[in-house]
């Protein structure tokens, strides 16, 4: 009986040791500030996200000007007023620098995330349309695909930034997570399907500029010492 107990104890000890070793192996790579692993600071995260958004806005600019050449949109000489009803018009967004600086950080972060989420489906749909149209040049299709992918990645990036900000206590935990935001958005009524290509591009160009500016303002409010 003692021999069995001893063997059991040994087994338990080995199991615990093995689990401890496994834990060590499964431990996060960047634990305890090891030198090999570089933990991205909040400023770095912000910089990456801002660069990403700038690139995205650039592509939307290019696509919009390409489409404007092909589809002559009467801007000045049109009869009546064509009000561009972007599907994101219902979102309340700050319309200037002071407004963006005045609203709460959490609200600003939420606005950014909402905008990014609102464009995920329309851009994917747009890309598919472009890819199927044979009369358009291929590079438009590539750009549309890149734009669609960028919106997706940018949203993930901003979510990470929001998480980090919450972790560091810079913003309160009132920022909604992804799932709850999707619930908050108006149900996908497919308004964006009614938009024509150039209208869609115009609306996205405007919104991507908003996202870019909001992110920059947010960065300088959260981490002002890094190049503001």
């Amino acid at each position: 009986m003692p021999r069995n107990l001893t063997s059991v104890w040994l087994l338990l000890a080995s199991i615990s040791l093995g689990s401890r070793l496994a834990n060590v192996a499964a431990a996060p790579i960047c634990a305890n500030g090891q030198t090999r692993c570089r933990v991205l600071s909040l400023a770095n995260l912000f910089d990456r996200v801002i660069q990403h958004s700038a690139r995205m806005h650039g592509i939307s600019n290019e696509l919009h000007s390409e489409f404007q050449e092909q589809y002559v949109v009467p801007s000045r000489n049109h009869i009546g007023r064509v009000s561009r009803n972007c599907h994101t018009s219902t979102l309340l967004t700050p319309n200037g620098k002071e407004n963006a600086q005045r609203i709460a950080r959490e609200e600003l972060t939420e606005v950014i995330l909402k905008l990014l989420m609102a464009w995920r489906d329309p851009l994917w749909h747009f890309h598919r349309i472009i890819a199927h149209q044979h009369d358009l040049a291929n590079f438009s299709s590539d750009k549309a695909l890149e734009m669609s992918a960028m919106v997706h990645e940018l949203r993930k990036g901003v979510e990470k930034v929001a998480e980090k900000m919450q972790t560091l206590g810079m913003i309160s935990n009132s920022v909604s997570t992804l799932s709850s935001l999707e619930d908050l958005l108006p149900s996908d009524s497919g308004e964006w399907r009614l938009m024509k290509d150039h209208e869609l591009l115009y609306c996205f160009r405007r919104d991507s500029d908003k996202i870019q500016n909001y992110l920059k303002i947010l960065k300088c409010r959260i981490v002002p010492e890094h190049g503001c």
Partner: protein
Amino acid sequence: MLTTEVCDVTFSVVPAGDGMKSDTCAATIVTMLLSAARCNSRSPPGRPVLLGCRSPDKETFTCWWEPGIDGGLPTTHRLYYQRERPEGTQECPDYRTAGSNACFFDRNYTSIWVDYYLTVVASNALGNSTSDELKVDVMDIVKPDAPEHVTLKAEDREESLSLHVSWDHPRNVDTKSGWVTLEYQLRARQQQQQQRRRGGGHTNNWKEYKAGRQTQFTLYGVHPGTVFVVQVRCRLDYSAWSSWTDASYVNIPNSIRKEKPFWMSILALSGFLFLAALCIVVMKRKSVIQSLLPPVPGPKIRGVDFQLVKSGRAQDLASALIIQQDFAPAMAWNDYIDDDDYLIVSDHNTAGTQQRSLVISTSFSSKDNGAEQNFKDLKTTPTVNQEDCSCNLSIHSSYVDFEAHVELELDYSRVKDVTSDNIFLLESVDVPRPEKLREDYSKVVDSEMLLLQEKSNQLDCLKKLPPSNPQTDADLIDGGYVDAILTPPLG
């Protein structure tokens, strides 16, 4: 039918049959003109035209319009705008800041990412007219001012010449809050001479560089001795580019290196000094050689001209020997030499048969009689006629008749091989070997000269000896050699 419209009144002149003559036509024209003159002063204004809007900083914007035809009455222009949100038509908040025929929207009235619908209404007492509507989104009309304070500086690095350009952001752009990001672009080219006259309007040969967000840039590989023209422009985010700054000129100096001329001058100076030293050395080479390589002291027998001896001729030698000079008393010389020593001067004929040698007693001065006796004794010894030196010396060997024998000349040509030093003094009857004697002879010639110098009087005396034994003398003389034996001092 002639129809004109003046001041909204239509004149139509209908030629009514043949009755219409030129006078009627002229009258109508005059009436029209008068009416026109009156009408120009009063009419509703013409339609203004909205030219466009511009935002230099994405926070404010300005719009300009062009008035229509003036109606002759004081006309006022008003700008009205509408936005998506909030609803309602509003009037321009500021007509003055941006100048005439312009409207300035400051921060409170500017909304980005919002469509503005603008119209201008011109009105006077007679009426008003409205321009076309202009839709504007501030995002689309951003165009910053040009960068400021462009400074150029030519720099000299180790291997290359470079041009450093620096500038400032436009004054009215806020770069602190992160609201906008400025991106710069610069262009540069070498100034061509002919373009300067034309004002430099060429678009080609401009090289454009993207400077990103930095406010400085360095151009490498600029050529010295040229003039460079540089211009900078910027844009906000992805807005339109600003206008180029005024051209800045910089003159790239030719020799910007300060060290190089210094070293070149040092090198040139040292080269010049070296050449000067070389010239001096060449010119004074004799004295230089003399100081560096002290000359071999030649034979210096006072009273003997060494040059004549060197010439090798017998008569020269004689005259060299018989130079009338004062010379130091023999005492000084004799101190170094024992009184009883004799000197053998011998030469060896290369033909092999005869050998001549001369014995000179060094003690003649004090023992003149003895010396003569010695010489007399020497007379009787037989002559030597073999190669090896069994040197029979005769008393007559005390002098040498130089004049008569060619072989002597030959022998005396050996004088040229004279080296300094050693007076070979033989102290025994045994005649040394010919080689030695040969050497001695040559050596002895040095001292022989000394001796002979001393003995010049003696020689004279000897020469004047009566030919008591003419035959012997003649033999001796004819033989062309001097036989000498060394005899121990008598007494």
